[in-house]
């Protein structure tokens, strides 16, 4: 029988995959993809817990996560376009303005 633990572990593995992506990739667009993976991983956990407790709060959170993700993509891509215009690349290593 598939229990809550299965879903949570799946969610954890997917989250780690996303994290590896975030850490490994240098291309900003790829970073965005990885972020989406992490968000979705969390959504799975929410949905699973919601199902487990028969409580709608989890699903509600998942909805808001999706809303936030959508907004993030909209704004983030806008920013990416500007960055690309400015630097001509999306490579993270090119942005070192914050060097202390």
């Amino acid at each position, binding site marked *: 029988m598939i229990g809550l633990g299965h879903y949570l572990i799946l969610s954890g593995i997917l989250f780690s995959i996303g*994290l590896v992506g*975030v*850490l490994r990739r*240098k291309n900003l667009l790829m970073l965005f993809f990885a972020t989406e993976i992490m968000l979705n991983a969390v959504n799975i956990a929410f949905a699973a817990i919601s199902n487990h407790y028969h409580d709608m709060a989890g699903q509600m959170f998942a909805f808001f996560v999706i809303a936030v993700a959508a907004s993030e993509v909209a704004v983030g891509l806008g920013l990416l376009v500007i960055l690309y215009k400015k630097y001509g690349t999306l490579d*993270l*290593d090119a*942005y*070192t*303005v*914050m*060097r*202390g």
Partner: protein
Amino acid sequence: MENLVYIALFAPLAGSLFAALFGMSKKNIITGIVTSTLIFISFVASAILFSHVMTVGPVHVRMMDWIMAGDMLIPFGFLVDQISVTMMTVVTLVSTVVHIYSNGYMDHDKSFNRFFSYLSAFVFSMMVLVMSDNFLGLFIGWEGVGVCSWLLIGFWYHKEDVSREVNPSISPSWAANEAFIMNRIADLGMLVGIFILYWNVGSLQYDVVFAALPNLSDGILVAAAVALFIGAMGKSAQFPLHTWLTDAMEGPTPVSALIHAATMVTAGVFLVIRANPLYSMEAVHWVSYFIAALGTFVAVFAASMALVNRDLKRIIAFSTLSQLGYMFAAAGLGAYWIALFHLAAHAFFKALLFLGAGNVMHAMDGELDIFKMGGLKKVMRWTYLYMGVASLALSGIGIAGIGFAGYFSKDAIIEVAFNEHTYVLWTILVLTAGLTAFYSFRQVFLTFHGNERYHALGIHPHEMYGYVLVALSPLAILAVVAGFYKDWFEHFVTKLLPEYHMSEHTHHIAWILGLLVIAFAVGGIVLAYIKYNRGLKRNEKLERSFVYRLLSNQYYIPIFYEKTISKPYAALSRFSWGTVDQKVVDATVDGIGKFIKTTGDTTRKIQTGNLSDYLRWMAGGALLLVAIAFVAFKLSQGAH
């Protein structure tokens, strides 16, 4: 009578404030006249109060509340009884004379108005001191006279500091600070005495405190007596806090006469007399004896220094110190009324002596070295007469119930010492009487007799103004006749002060004792006559001897104080500032700041500016946090 009390008290204040209005403008004779008049009014009021106290009894007024906190209630209350009215009369009388005198003495000084403002302020403070009905009120006056003394010693503040060899007092402002600080040291003792009384009695009113004394434990009584006497030691310049008094001679001479001879310095004696119920307690017997012993020591100690001094005013200052010693000796031995009597008599003749010295100084263009004077009696006949009378009174000349003021008062003190079987003290006091006569007349002869050494300086001495000489006459008369009122005075003050009776034995041999003292005094005068009448013959060998140098350098005590107290204090201060404060305390604080800054500088390298690196750090941190949270949760679960 209440109004008279207020008039006596506040007339000097009014005069001071009036003069202060003109304080920064140039000389205005009106200030001198107004302040003198107001002091005279105060004197008249005091005299009327005197007769009132004599015929009716003490007056006690309470003006208003001053400090109210917790259970402490301290009013401005004024008590005019036998002790205070005696002091009031003496103070205002001498003050009146000194004010009039100052009109002449200070007439060329550009700060004439300021001088009168200070002088009247002093009289006001002194009146507060003697009239107050509680210890803290006394303390107001106590500090007030201290400040006025500071202002007046440093009156010629513009003079520069010079080395101790040129002027032993360095400069007026230096002497003023020395006097103030030394007094402050003693004042701390006095404050502690006040605290002790307050917390054990619950009040500072004289009557309440004295009534409660029998209920207090011995330790508290001794502590209070000692603490209060420390205060008295400062104001009355008793050893070891005596050095400021001779340095205070830097002030104008009227100031020396009024403050540092007649009134302020006797405040310590006044305090002991005022607190006589405390000092008469059986428990504080040893403290009283110590007071007497210290007084006797100071008497001979100061007299010895006066023997060799060349400075006219300093000699008189040492003699003041010596006479204060006599007063403490009497008070310490329980003869309070005799101490008070000597205080009053001393005020008259010592003020006269100082003012006479002022005349000499005025004539000699400020020169004070008696080795440079001589033969002044030809040009300063009246001054010579006054100083002669005052010196006779100081030496205590008289016989068989007829004599100068000092004869009655000082003799009585010596007799008391004999009567109390303190023969060591008695011997020293008799010896000191001889020394006193010697140095007094050494000064008189060197100043007025012999060859006229001042010609070398190109000075043309002249007698003081006539009105000044007239103004001095009351003091001269009192210096002569005050002694005759001894019995009357005894009768008057012993209504309040404990009586003092000589034993039968003493009474019988009193005439022998008196004769002995007179013999010493006359001996001193004769010795001075032989040595100095013909003029000055310097004895170089003697002047180079160790004892002579010891005495003329005041036993090296001022230098000792400078070397062991002032200099180390200054060095320690600089050490505290330069090393402790800057290099330890502040450096620690800055060190913490620097540590944080260096840490920041070092860890700044993490800030590569590369987002990937930051993300890795973040992931590592998140991992750590989750791990900690998990472990902590597990542990807390395990604990339950």
